[in-house]
């Protein structure tokens, strides 16, 4: 008797668990908010403003997905994660989407069982040193003390870089960007290394950004993108095509300024399909016709977001570079909306 009850309990809990793991879309809708994992604070990418509202380039991805799915870009619960906690948070279901300067790698995709839905920033790892050190190349860093964030690809690239160049170094492992900044400014390390965009963002928040230089060497490829759990393809598709919608909108000249006008109908069928005035793309991913329109209206198209949070006019001051549209010699290339 005991045994059957035991087995019964096993199957029931098994079924319950199985059902909960699929259908993230239903969970998000029932909850009414999107749980989105972001960093603990990196200017330009994800940081709370003076009023405690999260904003930034990664935050904008969360808001676009919330706008597409929940019709409200504010319906996001931001969960700050460190380099070490982010994957556990996603795998355990604490967050539905992770948008935190995360590099798409083979093992994260396949061994850690995640699904990267695209790339929102093409980056590479760089080094920042105080100007007064007089260092001009990363090859001169032998013997230096280097601050790194643990649980990142940065850590692995760094080990490889110093090994292949036959140099010694002293790693100082650190949990968050804020701590790294404090250690670096206190000269507890000579060098800070992370994604070049992160270096620019970090330097932008210094009192005297001009006292620090970013060395010319970029030692790795860091395609940063949002990711979801393996195994829920519908949810992965929604996140992927929301990002693609932002990129395509820039390509087709759909901006937050002209989107209302364009959604009356245009001569360009691709724009019409994107904005839901033609065809039934929304239905195909389980959303309504205006999902992409709302996603773009949440903060503007990819180019607008870039200009607002990272562009040359912001303190971070990044050039588009690789992150320009393919038509402008960059790598951004959204597949056709048809």
């Amino acid at each position, binding site marked *: 008797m*005991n045994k059957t*009850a*035991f087995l019964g*309990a*096993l199957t029931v*809990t*098994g079924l319950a*668990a*199985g059902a909960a*793991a*699929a259908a993230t879309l239903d969970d998000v809708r029932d909850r009414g908010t999107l749980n989105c994992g972001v960093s603990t604070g990196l200017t330009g990418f994800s940081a709370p403003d003076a009023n405690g509202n999260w904003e930034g380039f990664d935050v904008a991805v969360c808001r676009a997905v919330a706008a597409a799915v929940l019709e409200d870009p504010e319906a996001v619960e931001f969960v700050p994660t460190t*380099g*070490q906690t982010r*994957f*556990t948070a996603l*795998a355990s279901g604490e967050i539905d989407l992770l948008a935190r300067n995360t590099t798409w790698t083979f*093992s*994260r995709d396949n*061994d*850690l*069982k995640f699904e990267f839905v695209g790339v929102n920033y093409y980056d590479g790892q760089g080094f920042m040193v105080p100007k007064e050190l007089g260092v001009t190349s990363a090859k001169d*860093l*032998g*013997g*230096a*003390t280097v601050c790194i964030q*643990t*649980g990142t690809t940065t*850590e*692995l690239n*760094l*080990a*490889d870089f*110093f*090994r292949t160049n036959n140099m010694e*170094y*002293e*790693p*100082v*492992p*650190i*949990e968050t960007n804020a701590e790294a900044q404090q*250690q670096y400014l*206190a*000269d*507890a*390390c*000579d060098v800070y290394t992370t994604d070049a965009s992160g270096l620019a963002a970090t330097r932008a928040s210094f009192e005297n950004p001009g006292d620090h230089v970013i060395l010319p060497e970029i030692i790795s490829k860091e395609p940063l993108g949002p990711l979801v*759990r*393996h*195994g829920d393809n519908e949810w992965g598709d929604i996140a992927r095509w929301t990002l693609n919608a932002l990129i395509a909108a820039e390509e087709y000249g759909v901006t937050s300024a002209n989107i209302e006008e364009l959604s009356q109908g245009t001569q360009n069928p691709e724009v019409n399909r994107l904005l839901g005035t033609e065809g039934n793309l929304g239905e195909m991913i389980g959303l309504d016709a205006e999902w992409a329109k709302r996603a773009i209206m949440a903060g503007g198209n990819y180019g607008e977001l870039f200009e607002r949070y990272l562009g040359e006019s912001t303190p971070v001051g990044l050039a588009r570079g690789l992150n320009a549209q393919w038509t402008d010699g960059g790598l951004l290339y959204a597949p056709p909306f048809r």
Partner: protein
Amino acid sequence: MASTVDASSRQGFKLSQLIYDTRYRSLTIQAIAMALLVLFLSWLVSNTVQNLSDLGKDFDFGFLGQRAGYDINQTLIPYTSGSSHARAAIVGILNTLLVAFLGCILATIVGVIAGVLRLSKNWLVARLMTVYVEGFRNVPLLLWIIAIFAMMTEATPQPRDFREGGTASMWLWDSVAVSNRGVYIPAPVWGPGSTALIIVFVLSIAAIIGFRRYAFRRQEATGVLLPILPVSLALFFLPSILAYFVLGGPVSLAYPELGGFNFQGGLHMRNSLIALWLALSLYTGAFIAEIVRGGILSVAKGQSEAAFALGLRPSRTMNLVILPQAMRVIIPPLISQYLNLTKNSSLAIAVGYMDARSTLGGITINQTGRELEGMLLLGLFYLVLSLIISGAMNVFNARMKLKER
């Protein structure tokens, strides 16, 4: 009572008796509790298995053999980024053991001194110790770790300042450098002949122990006291110093020197180690102080009065009468303080000290996605370590127990 037994044996067994009959009730409750526990555990296990398979993950320790790929700053055994995750875990475990060992020693010293001084008749000293104990006991350990670490990085000069014409200089005839990256001290260099020196040293320690035993036995038999302290000190220093010169100075010191970005040579005690060590020791020391104070107070006043009446000096009264009795009270809670200190050392990540939690339970888990396996291994490590510590301390306790003659 007798009538119930009679009645039930006459009427046979009824199901309601399981609840209403005091003879069966406790059994029933135990059986139900057991069944619930088994159900709960099986639910946990099946849920885990199910969730793992939903994520497409298996349960496999194979990752331990893979290349770790990351560097560790403080390694007590040779390690490179090409070593395996298992080796990285061992490096972390050794770092945990190091800080736990150093911490237990310093915490005991601090705790005993503070505990005894808190009973001092000197008002100021006693009050100061009270402030220390209450200050450290009542503020979370994590804050102390971070505060000490911050003080050490912000208040000390950077290596560059030690350059010619810089603002900082080394201590103790240019042998110790205190910088914001840690403390660099001279490191011993073991030249040829140092083995002989070590053997001489070990032998002199053995001689000290032997002499003490002999002196003790003689005192038991004849009542004559031998000068234990001077002889011990002489045995400790003289043979080793003699041997050092006879062997032509086999051990020398490598002094830290500024080269490139950092100091080279010498022994580098990183700020992360020092901050963690000090914070753990001072925090646990405050608890040990209370334990020691309680232990001493637990010995009846009549004991010391009797000792004084016999003409024993205060120091001998402490050593021969009070402490042996206080030890019985002190050791058991002391064991749990050592266990606490060891487990608290897992807060190391706050200052980037690479202990077992930071390597195996941190970076390795993060790079391989093996949370469950890594955490189980880590739990197992702390469990085994705790059992070993309490086992060793229990043996010590058994030896310190009052023995009747």
